[in-house]
């Protein structure tokens, strides 16, 4: 894992923890996907029903945990809690990535993992499918969301990405 990627993960986790009381693996996965779509990371993603998912990102999280940089705990009622390990100092990060993370955390940092999963799924198809097909497709993959919710999410995605 490169130092730059280490810096991206640690900065993201640290900023997210300032904004919300639970930073789970889903949140990190989806935030990294947003960064990918902004052209700032190059992890490969594939789509599951829980949204875009990267085996590479999962792997990086485990490496950071085993290196003692991230603390990853589990609550059976709520899922993962990822925090920066005590005493770990953040390293330098390029301005453009830093600004993008600040922006994403400000915009989405308080969203539930479930909602991030919807945003990332809509984003996954944004640019791949005509807009008219995105809503139907996402509704068919994530029937727990209403058409209105998917429509609103598409507007958010269009505004940001």
């Amino acid at each position: 894992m490169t130092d730059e990627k280490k810096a991206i993960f640690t900065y993201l986790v640290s900023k997210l923890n300032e904004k919300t009381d639970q930073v789970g693996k889903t949140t990190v996965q989806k935030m990294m996907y947003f960064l990918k779509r902004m052209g700032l990371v190059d992890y490969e993603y594939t789509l599951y029903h829980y949204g875009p998912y990267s085996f590479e990102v999962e792997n990086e999280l485990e490496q950071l945990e085993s290196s003692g940089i991230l603390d990853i705990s589990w609550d059976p009622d709520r899922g993962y809690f990822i925090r920066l390990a005590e005493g770990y100092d953040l390293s330098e990060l390029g301005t453009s990535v830093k600004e993008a993370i600040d922006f994403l955390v400000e915009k989405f940092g308080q969203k539930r993992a479930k909602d991030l999963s919807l945003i990332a799924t809509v984003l996954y198809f944004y640019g791949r499918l005509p807009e008219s097909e995105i809503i139907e497709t996402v509704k068919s993959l994530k029937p727990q969301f209403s058409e209105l919710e998917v429509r609103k999410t598409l507007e958010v995605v269009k505004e940001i990405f």
Partner: protein
Amino acid sequence: MRYYEIRDPVYGFIRFNELEKEIINHPAFQRLRRIKQLALTEMVYPSATHTRFEHSLGVMHLASEFYDTIVRNNKNYLEGKLHYNEAGFERDKQLVRLAALLHDIGHTPFSHVGENKKLMKTNPETNKPYKHEHYSVEIIKNVLRDVIEKHDVNQNYKISVEEVAGLIEGNEEVLERKIFWKQLISGQLDVDRCDYLLRDSHHIGVKYGIYDVSRLIATITIAESPETEDPILAIDESGWHVAESLILSRYYMFTQVYFHKTRRAYDFHLSRALESILPSGKFPEPQKINEFLELDDWIVSKDILTSDNDDCRRIRERRHIRCIYETPEVPDNDAIERFEKARDVLGDIAVYEDVAKNRWYEVNGEGGSMEIFIKLGNGKLMPLSKISRIVPKMGEMKQRRLYVYPELKDEAKKLLEKEGLL
């Protein structure tokens, strides 16, 4: 509908229907008989000569077993959450079986050895080398379209090739609720790995990949992710020991077979041999699928047998590079320093440096987690690493090795001995 049976050394018999029979008999699938599962591993383990053909049948069989248990034990949940009915269950079982059967149909000759950035062209969409899944999808959508979509058996199901491909790679827009089953094809509990651990062990003659597959089939289930409330695959609490042994099997097979020092030496030679044999040094891109399908182990081996290329000759004569120096599986700083010193001392004599990087728990060579979720009696989820006392201690493997040509082995040894490194 007529059913057929075929002998299988792992499961006894594998049953398939007329549609599956037609696919199996198609030349694109028969090609898998000529692609060995483990490339030149037979240079170390002589009986490692099994092929992607039988593995693909095994994956279909296991996918079916998993599917049946999941549906049987979670029927109400699937009916309520994903609105399944009997016809839906039956149709999607066929879909899952087809995706499992065809998941490896796009493999290059000598399986994963061919799948590296030197030999694969770059996918302009990802800016990364193509993977065998891209070829599988191309074959399913183009070569097998009529075989699948026009078959009598499929007239009740109306399964499209896009759906089959979608469970392997891309085309997610057509999957709807069926995307849930993608976890069975690739994921931490996918049927691909569950099959090859058992099959490779059987053929090689090792016991490292053996785990209690019957128990795994009996305990696979669905639970909801507390983070997203989405259904995910899990193992019932009563089967958590089999989940643990699956992880151990992966680890042992990696250290004893897949990362065996001589096997890796042959991967090195084979990769370079393929580079010299293939026109322009690379496999044709997936769009040239008919050209790609003409390549298999037999065709490539003919060139290996006759080529003057040094790597081809070394494969023929079993004069492979030798591992002269290696670190422990998990090297400490001192071991890394010594390794780096050995590399400096050997200089150009060290022709290959091999690094083990997490591969033992990767999914499709892309990284991934060793985590498997356990569904507790109260329905809640717990990662295996929080229950098992062994799994959390199984960190990443970072073994490094240096190789030299056999004719330079003595010289290399002396150089290392002189520096007190051996």
